[in-house]
């Protein structure tokens, strides 16, 4: 990494009381998003597809809420040198210690590079980024529905809801039972977990829809929270409309900057003013389910 770690690059910032060239005292700059070299604490395969990465970062970087994400600079692997950074959801954070967790699936050059990280390596990160899930508004019981690595995004949300005294039902979908990686993270007192898998034959959106209708009629679903899968999203949007339920989804889109500068991550949304284009990185990645299109 050629990058200077963050505090070094602040060396020459005018300190409070210092004078600018113009003679006017310049207030010091306080970033609200961190660009820094974090240190890898651990990076381990949790099963055949997913890896769990824990890094040591600054308190500023770790001050994230569920649904937010980071841009990670992935090291070269197998001759491929990832140029752009890769977006990864917050999987867990400890603001006190500055530790941040990610759960990722190895799919291409970037994530393959990530999987080569070993403890004490440095990794350049930018974050926390974007708008996370919103748990405001007198929610009593929510349902989180995710599939595959999408559970990475939902796990900290479920925990946050639990801490806020909101009941959580988690419908965790995967190809097969051993790929439901974060089941333990949803295993808190009072949380109910419904695992559904392709191998068990109950992961079909239709099956999940039935389960949801049950929860809704039992008054155990004030809001829906999901992530990623468009098949599930379509079904959830229909339900949200039918029952006038609030719902939030974390979307994915290819990203170059992660900061709203490049406009590569745009997506169309329904809004009161007709179809509008929004940047997933800045306006999301969490959006109102009913505004999503496609």
């Amino acid at each position, binding site marked *: 990494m050629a990058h200077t770690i963050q505090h070094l690059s602040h060396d020459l910032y005018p300190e409070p009381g210092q004078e600018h060239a113009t003679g006017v005292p310049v207030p010091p700059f306080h970033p609200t998003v961190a660009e820094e070299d974090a240190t890898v604490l651990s990076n381990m395969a949790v099963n055949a597809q997913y890896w769990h990465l824990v890094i040591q970062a600054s308190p500023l970087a770790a001050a994230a809420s569920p649904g937010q994400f980071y841009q990670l600079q992935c090291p070269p692997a197998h001759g491929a040198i990832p140029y752009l950074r890769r977006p990864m959801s917050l999987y867990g954070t400890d603001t006190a210690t500055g530790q941040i967790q990610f759960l990722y699936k190895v799919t291409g050059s970037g994530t393959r590079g990530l999987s080569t990280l070993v403890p004490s390596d440095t990794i350049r990160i930018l974050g926390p980024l974007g708008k996370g899930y919103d748990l405001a508004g007198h929610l009593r019981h929510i349902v989180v529905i995710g599939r595959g690595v999408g559970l990475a995004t939902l796990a900290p949300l479920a925990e946050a809801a639990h801490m806020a005294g909101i009941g959580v039902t988690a419908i965790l979908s995967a190809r097969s039972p051993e790929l439901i990686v974060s089941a333990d993270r949803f295993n808190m007192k009072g949380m109910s977990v419904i695992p559904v898998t392709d191998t068990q034959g109950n992961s079909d959106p239709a099956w999940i829809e039935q389960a949801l209708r049950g929860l809704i009629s039992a008054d155990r679903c004030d809001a829906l929270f999901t992530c990623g899968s468009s098949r599930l999203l379509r079904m959830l949007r229909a339900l949200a409309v039918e029952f006038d339920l609030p719902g939030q989804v974390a979307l994915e889109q290819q990203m*170059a900057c992660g900061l709203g*500068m490049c*406009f*590569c991550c745009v997506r169309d949304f329904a809004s009161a003013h007709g179809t509008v284009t929004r940047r997933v990185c800045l306006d999301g990645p969490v959006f109102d389910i009913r505004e999503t299109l496609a």
Partner: protein
Amino acid sequence: MTDMSVMIGNLRLDSPVMPASGTFGDGLGQVMDIRRLGAIVTKTITRERRAGNPLPRVAETTGGMLNAIGIPSCGVEDFINRTLPHYTQWGTPLIVSISAPDAAGFATLARAVSIAGVDAIEANISCPNIEADGKAFAMEANATTKVVAALRAATDLPLWVKLTPNCHDMSVIARAAEAAGADAVVVANTILGMSIDTRTFRPRLGNVMGGLSGAAIKPIILRQTYQCARSVAIPVIGCGGITTADDAVEYMLAGAVAVQVGTASFINSLAMTDILDGLDRFCHARSITRVAALTGALRDATSPRCCDMDA
């Protein structure tokens, strides 16, 4: 501390580093101290509202990236009413990048943005994505003369003209821009490129072709900066693959008065301030008191020397 100020014609910038058009947004202000930049350059705007190109809009390449964002624009009215007030918050000189389909359109738009709060206009006469097959004004001297003359007649603001690397002799185009009244040339926009997904047999960009930027293009744009700087008397602003302070020094030695940083900010949000800090250290270590002294300070090529193991 090194004197970082540079003059672009009559416009004084506190530092020689600024963002490249289309690679800056106020999101960056969350990470980096915008006040340290020499200027802010906006994403190119058009008169009308525009949608931009189909997705995917970016693709990664070796040492760089392709983009075919297009010029999604909220239109000039929205820009003036909503974006502009936002961009003046830091007190940093503001450069508005504009584009139009013809010379008259450029002039109209230049007139519209020649208002308080705008410190210069950057005419993007080089965007390779708008016209079919990547054609642009800045590919030909005549078209350049025509559009720059129309712009010059339309505004009293400092006029920067951004050239395209997709031409066979940029110094001719730079001279045309200078003769028609440009106050500076920006060298350069992206290089037209392409990438194919061999799994799907489809282009990786929705627009098929797109502009290559990032470290990979540095040697090419640096060469064009050198050629232009030797050909015109107006300032040349270098832009292409600048990632480190060393890159910025290379551009300045080749003749650039200031530099713009684009893609590097996507990979390191502190790229611009890191470069500023590095420039300061570079000058300090060599007892260079003014960063402007680097401009054009390139020496002759060395005569053949053999390598030596002497310690």
